[in-house]
């Protein structure tokens, strides 16, 4: 239930019109960013003329600071889904760079800021290089790893007299240019600079291949790598960018604090607050952390001065619970569905309260934001939304972003399938595409594959069969580079794939599907396929990729579902999506891993037809399967594995009548 809300909104962002929203060639988000930054800068510079008090500048600085930190965290942890507790480490490196340089050695703060960013970037690189090299790294292991880092850094600082030594450091009030009226103005400008850079980076990442690749990592990392996303490099880029931004902003934070010591910086509270901002704001979009920071900073600042005494933390704690429970995927998703309602509500409530004169600015801000969130949440309730939609359809062209009717879908599918002039499959016996030579694979003491050799030549459909535990899955993993053989060599289209990362193997011409489909859950069917085009051998821009994705969807007869989200598909459709995504990479060889598992007979027939069409388009296929009936129909050749050894290789009729095969495979199955 909770997943639905988030993915729906994420889906509607990329579904619909097609190309990313741009004005001319500049993304709209960038214009907004420039506008807002310029506005804040102007407001801050002329704050006294506008009647802004110093405290307001502090509030702006605080929002900007946390927005920067949250954006920095979000690059890896939000976009790619690797939650980190280590943001305090990046921030802390920045803080202590400033403390040591400006506080203890009188170095100009303008130098300390980039140095802080650089050092934090180096730390991020080291963390990433260690963590992302781990084969079995899961999200929670990464979270735990990063949890330890701030503790270690804090302890090092505490034990190093030239950094902190348990004595703390005063950061002197910095000199400022004449045109900056006060210290707090300087803080706003520095924080604004950092925030602008951070958001610009996040915006650029979000709209780039990097951003789409990270989103794919978030949804299904194995599948992302297999369609050609260089996941390691992308994760490293994200963590290092985040580290640099976090360190820069940390150095500025030290100036805001004025006095720094270890317990202020290396505490779990900081990463928790940052995570809270991103969760409350929304993690999958660059604007989420901004919304979250504005909301939560104002909320907590309000609570700090609210006269609730000993009930303050109780109310605040319950509110935090409420925010996560109500919007586990973030406020941004709700606000973006009804932006005008959100904006108008906020302006009316906040403005009204201010105009009444009875409320302080912070009260008005908080109540305005709260009202905005509440109203958009209410407006988003299905019952209310139905009313709203009915009235809105006439003037809102983008409103029903759902799939077009089945009629049009079926029509276009038929059209394109007839238009898909199937070239006759190239005769078997041509070029050798896959060559497996003497491959052995050990797991600890267990030998999963023992000296296996076979070839796949152009135009073949090879069935790879064997009972459970025969080594089929291991073979698939070796073929697509997810594992390395203990001995032997695999060549794809004449190129040895030894030591290549799976995405490189993908580029060498191997595509695969998964027995349990692994779609990119936050993307529409069309975008799922487009990912494979973008990151495939030839590569393509996002817009191009989406067009080519249509053809692939037509091949599997899924065109009418192009705008649907994967979770609305049934198993058969998901398998077809797997196939569409696999052929989108224009592979030389397609490996189908148990593509018929769990399908009913009608669906199997349909799948067989699809596979024939794919084959007809010139792709050689390896089918990993234990259903012999299907293979007899489809395969041009069958390779049989049993307990890690190859026991037969030949034409289906020959192999299936082979005594050894019957003994090993059928005999066991009958028993």
């Amino acid at each position, binding site marked *: 239930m909770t997943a639905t809300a988030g993915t729906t909104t994420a889906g*509607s962002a990329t579904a619909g019109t097609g190309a990313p929203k741009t004005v001319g060639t500049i993304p709209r988000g960038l214009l907004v960013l420039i506008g807002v930054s310029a506005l804040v800068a102007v407001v801050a510079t002329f704050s006294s003329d506008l009647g802004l008090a110093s405290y307001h500048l502090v509030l702006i600085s605080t929002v900007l600071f946390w927005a920067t930190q949250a954006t920095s965290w979000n690059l890896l942890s939000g976009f790619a889904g690797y939650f980190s507790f280590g943001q305090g480490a990046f921030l802390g490196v920045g803080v202590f760079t400033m403390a040591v340089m400006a506080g203890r050695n009188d170095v100009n703060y303008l130098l300390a800021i980039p140095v802080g960013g650089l050092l934090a970037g180096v730390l991020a690189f080291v963390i990433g290089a260690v963590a992302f090299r781990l084969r079995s790294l899961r999200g929670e292991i990464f979270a735990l790893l990063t949890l330890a880092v701030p503790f270690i850094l804090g302890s090092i600082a505490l034990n190093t007299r030239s950094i902190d030594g348990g004595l703390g450091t005063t950061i002197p009030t910095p000199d400022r240019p004449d045109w900056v009226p006060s210290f707090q103005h300087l803080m706003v400008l520095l924080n604004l600079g950092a925030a602008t850079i951070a958001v610009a980076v996040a915006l650029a990442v979000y709209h780039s291949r990097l951003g789409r690749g990270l989103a794919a990592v978030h949804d299904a990392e194995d599948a992302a790598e297999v369609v050609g996303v260089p996941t390691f490099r992308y994760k490293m880029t994200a963590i290092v960018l985040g580290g640099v931004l976090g360190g820069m902003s940390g150095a500025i934070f030290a100036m805001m604090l004025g006095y720094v010591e270890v317990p202020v910086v290396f505490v779990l509270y900081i990463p928790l607050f940052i995570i809270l901002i991103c969760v409350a704001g929304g993690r999958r979009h660059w604007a989420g952390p901004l919304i979250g920071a504005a909301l939560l900073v104002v909320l907590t600042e309000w609570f*700090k001065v609210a006269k609730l005494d000993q009930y303050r933390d109780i109310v605040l704690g319950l509110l935090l619970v409420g925010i996560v429970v109500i919007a586990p995927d973030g406020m941004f998703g709700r606000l973006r569905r009804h*932006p005008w309602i959100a904006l108008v509500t906020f302006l009316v409530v906040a403005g009204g309260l201010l105009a009444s004169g009875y409320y302080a600015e912070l009260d*008005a801000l908080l109540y305005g934001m709260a009202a905005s969130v509440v109203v958009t949440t209410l407006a988003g309730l299905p019952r209310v939304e139905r009313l709203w939609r009915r009235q809105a359809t006439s003037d809102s062209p983008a409103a029903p972003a759902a799939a077009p009717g089945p009629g049009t879908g079926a029509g276009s599918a038929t059209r394109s399938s007839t238009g898909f002039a199937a070239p006759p499959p190239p005769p078997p016996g041509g070029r050798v595409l896959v060559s497996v030579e003497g491959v052995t694979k050990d797991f600890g003491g267990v030998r999963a594959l023992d000296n296996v050799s076979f070839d796949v030549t152009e135009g073949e459909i090879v069935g790879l069969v064997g009972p459970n535990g025969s080594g089929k899955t291991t073979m698939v993993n070796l073929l697509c580079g997810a594992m390395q053989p203990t001995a032997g060599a695999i060549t794809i289209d004449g190129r040895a794939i030894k030591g290549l990362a799976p995405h490189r193997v993908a580029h060498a011409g191997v595509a695969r599907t998964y027995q349990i489909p692994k779609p990119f859950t936050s993307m529409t069917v069309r975008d799922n396929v487009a990912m494979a085009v973008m990151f495939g051998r030839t590569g393509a821009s996002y817009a191009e990729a989406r067009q080519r994705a249509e053809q692939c969807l037509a091949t599997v007869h899924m065109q009418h579902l192009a705008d649907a989200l994967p979770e609305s598909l049934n198993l058969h459709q998901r398998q077809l999506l797997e196939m569409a995504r696999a052929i989108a990479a224009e592979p030389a060889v397609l490996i189908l891993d148990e593509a018929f598992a769990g399908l009913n007979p009608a669906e199997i027939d349909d799948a067989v037809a699809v596979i024939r069409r794919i084959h007809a388009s010139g792709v050689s296929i390896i089918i990993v399967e234990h259903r012999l009936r299907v293979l007899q129909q489809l395969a041009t050749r069958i390779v049989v594995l049993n307990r890690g050894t190859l026991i037969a290789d030949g034409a289906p009729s020959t192999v299936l009548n082979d005594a050894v095969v019957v003994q090993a495979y059928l005999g066991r199955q009958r028993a």
Partner: protein
Amino acid sequence: MRRRALPALAAALLVASVGACSTREPTTDPTGSDEPIVIGSTLALTGAFAATGIIHKIAGETFIDRLNDAGGLLGRRVEWRVLDDQSNTQNIVPLYEQLLSGPDPVDLIIGPYATPNILAAMGVAERYGKVLPHHTAVLRPQLTYECQFPGWSIGPNPNRFIPEQLFDMLATLPNPPKRIAIATVQNGSAAFVTNGFDDDPTGVPTIAAERGMQVVVNEQYPVGNQDWTGIAQAVANAQPDLFISNSLGADVVNQLNAMAQLGYHPPLTFALFPAPGPVLGLSDLAEGVFAWSMFEANQPALDRLGDEAKAIVADFVSRAEAQNVSYTAFETQAAASWTAWEILIDGVKAANSLDDKAICDALHEKGADTTFAGHLTFDPAQNNFWETKVGIKQVQDGDWVMVWPRDQASAEVRDPRT
């Protein structure tokens, strides 16, 4: 349509948060009106320092009520607006900025509790030119602002002063200690007594060496240390004459407990800033323990100070009891708090104005009269740290008693070894 409007919304929220701030002028300075004079501060009412923060809260409330009962200040009532900084230094700057430039800005400010927080608040006070009396900051070299006024003073060089005063006192014992074990917490409020400041390495070890004493154990441990056996074992093995715990709160209690489990009890113990109640909770183990102190409400001291002091102490104790505080005695923390308040009020009276420049000047010129620390004079060259009047207290018969220096002592130093 909707998609396009989205970034605009993000923008609008930011813009609105900025724009909305500008719509209201801060209330003007109410000098001369019948409005109360508002004094603002933060205190550690929750979090790690809260056990001491509550003492400062009760002391401040007692002070303000007594001030108003006596006719207020400049003929106006006085109000104290105290915000909770959650013991977190991060909160200090925003909260003091809020007090000074938020809606209904305060007229005067007073410091928060604990050195790091005071240092952070000092930055704000300096930018606003506000007088900042504070209760308990110890790192004199870092307190550089000319209008900050300490409510306690450990002299110009606390890292030298504290060990010397301790060793002076111990030298009067029949058999002064020769071998010293030190355990130091890595916290800015305590570590300097062992390690010195910045480039100045003066501390217990160097001064002990100057005086021909031998440091047999010098252990440092992080805040939040859990296992005390190692330190206890190291001390027990070394068999020192004196154990110095340069620590805060309940650390010394844990250390003595751990030593007791090993069947060891140091002959002499000195603790820097212990939580007074828990130390007394050690009952027999605590007997004879020394600690740093500014004031203890012992009868002889109260007799010396007179009825006003007695009434203040009684008032404080009854409020502390009502608030369910476990150790209700009026001692160092409360006295430092009281002194800080008196400095502020005396300054205002001397300047006859709420103008901070005038108050600051008046304090530099005339000093301040305080109940528990007497007349204080402030020299900006010494960062306003007045001639120290601090001393050493000792647990005697289950209670803290001031024993040093002699002119402030309520009882003789007892040698727990006899």
